[in-house]
């Protein structure tokens, strides 16, 4: 689902000065829209931006927050390692072994399209309530897309590059470092971006169903008590974290593409 431009796009013959400036504009526009919606629907339904910010500050400075954040953080980190590394290994293996890849791909795609929602009770039954369930939730959300992207990255290595490498009589290790890695890295990073967001989602959902601690748990509490301010504050926190990580990975992505866009 990563979006990439094929060539630099021109608006009236000019590329805009700076995307950063545009993002700032967009951010301000969204803030204004948010405030307007809050006025229309009323502050109990949609908390206004300043009130949300204050609520978030209150939540973060509360003594129990560190505990919750740590809880979510460690589960997420573990899930991320599993989905990124696991997905990478599976994807690479399937990419290099053609028959295995051909057999596995439709299965993976089918698994991916099953609403993982339907597997939640099974996960809960297998892992019980607690950290391992959360990690499992996170991992199952992220691992398949990462694997699919990695598999495609390997398949898309151009035969010409490999032939040129062999013509230059490079060793296997040199080929791996100087040809395989640069050729596959952009697409693998695209897979990581998606995997990051989905793993975070999975971990949070796991917390909502299977835990008494963590940010997901805080969300469920807020939902049950209809505490809109907390819901929005936490959503804001999550959006900020995910957007920052996505932006960082995007920068990495461009460093690898070298030219064009953004």
């Amino acid at each position, binding site marked *: *689902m*990563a*979006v990439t*431009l*094929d060539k630099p*796009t021109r*608006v009236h013959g000019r590329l*805009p000065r700076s*995307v950063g400036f*545009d993002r700032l*504009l*967009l951010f301000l526009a969204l803030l204004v829209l948010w405030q307007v919606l809050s006025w229309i*629907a009323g502050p*109990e339904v*949609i908390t206004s931006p300043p009130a949300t910010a204050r609520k978030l500050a209150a939540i973060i400075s509360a003594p129990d927050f560190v505990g919750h954040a740590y809880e979510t953080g460690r589960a997420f980190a573990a899930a991320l390692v599993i989905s990124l590394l696991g997905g990478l290994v599976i994807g690479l293996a399937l990419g290099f072994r053609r028959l295995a890849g*051909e*057999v*596995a791909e*439709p*299965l993976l795609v*089918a698994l991916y*399209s*099953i*609403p*993982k*929602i*339907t*597997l*939640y*009770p*099974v996960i*809960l*039954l*297998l892992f019980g309530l607690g950290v391992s369930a959360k990690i499992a939730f996170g991992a199952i959300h992220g691992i398949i897309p990462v694997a699919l992207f990695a598999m495609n990255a390997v398949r898309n290595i151009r035969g010409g590059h490999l032939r040129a490498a062999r013509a230059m009589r490079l060793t296997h290790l040199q080929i791996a470092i100087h040809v395989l890695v640069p050729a596959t890295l952009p697409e693998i990073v695209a897979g990581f*971006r*998606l995997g*990051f*967001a*989905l793993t975070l*989602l999975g971990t*949070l*959902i796991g917390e*909502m169903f299977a835990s008494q601690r963590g940010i997901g748990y805080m*969300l*469920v509490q*807020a*939902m049950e008590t*209809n505490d*809109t301010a907390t*819901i929005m504050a*936490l*959503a804001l926190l*999550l*959006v900020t*974290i*995910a*957007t920052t990580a*996505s932006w960082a990975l*995007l920068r990495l992505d461009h460093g690898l593409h070298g030219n064009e866009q*953004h």
Partner: protein
Amino acid sequence: MSRAGFIRFLVVAVAIVVLEIACRAGLIDPITIIPPSGMAAGAWKLIVSGRYTEDILLTLGSVALAAMLAIVGGFGLGYCLFRLPRLRRALDPLLASYYAVPTFIFYPLFIVLFGLNRLPLVAIGFMFAVIAMAINTLTGFERVPPVLRRTARALRLSAPTALVQITMPACAPYLFTGVKLVIAYSFIGVIAGEFVLSGAGIGHQIAFAYNNFDNPTMYGLMLLLISFVSGLNMLLFVWERRFYRRRGLT
């Protein structure tokens, strides 16, 4: 059947048989997982008893509505982003992080806005699915070969005609992918909502069965759901293959 297809069939069949044996031999606790045959039996009983027909129809109705809204809305949004590249570039990190937030946390918000009916669930399904459609629409428009655009001008087509006769057919494969994703995500959104805070629908019944340790019903419902979604996906896949194979597009 191709070699790969045959191996695939074997793998799945063996997996099911192994699970069946493991369950029956008592290696797996029946409180956790029941044998596949038990799941199938549970599913059959559900269909026959008709107890859950109303829930099933309710869920399917909400999913269908969410999907249709997401397809239309996502297409429109994708087209707007295509025509406004500055907006699209500015929005990029936000689009990628959209899926990190479980959108069904806004369910209480939607209840207040729309009332205590199916609409909040539809809204969640919509929110989950619309971005996938928008992204695929955008990619589709971007990937129209420039030579086709020049051809439209060479043939002196008006802008609306060019859009309908050339751009849309050229985008069709991507739009189709978008529709597939919309269906999957609408299901996820609606059912997730039903799990968490709803009194009706398949999601609710699964959660209810889970809470009451009623494994046959729970697995039966899950099996029905998975079968339905998989069946739908396969149908779409077959259509897609048949439609696009001769046209050389995959």
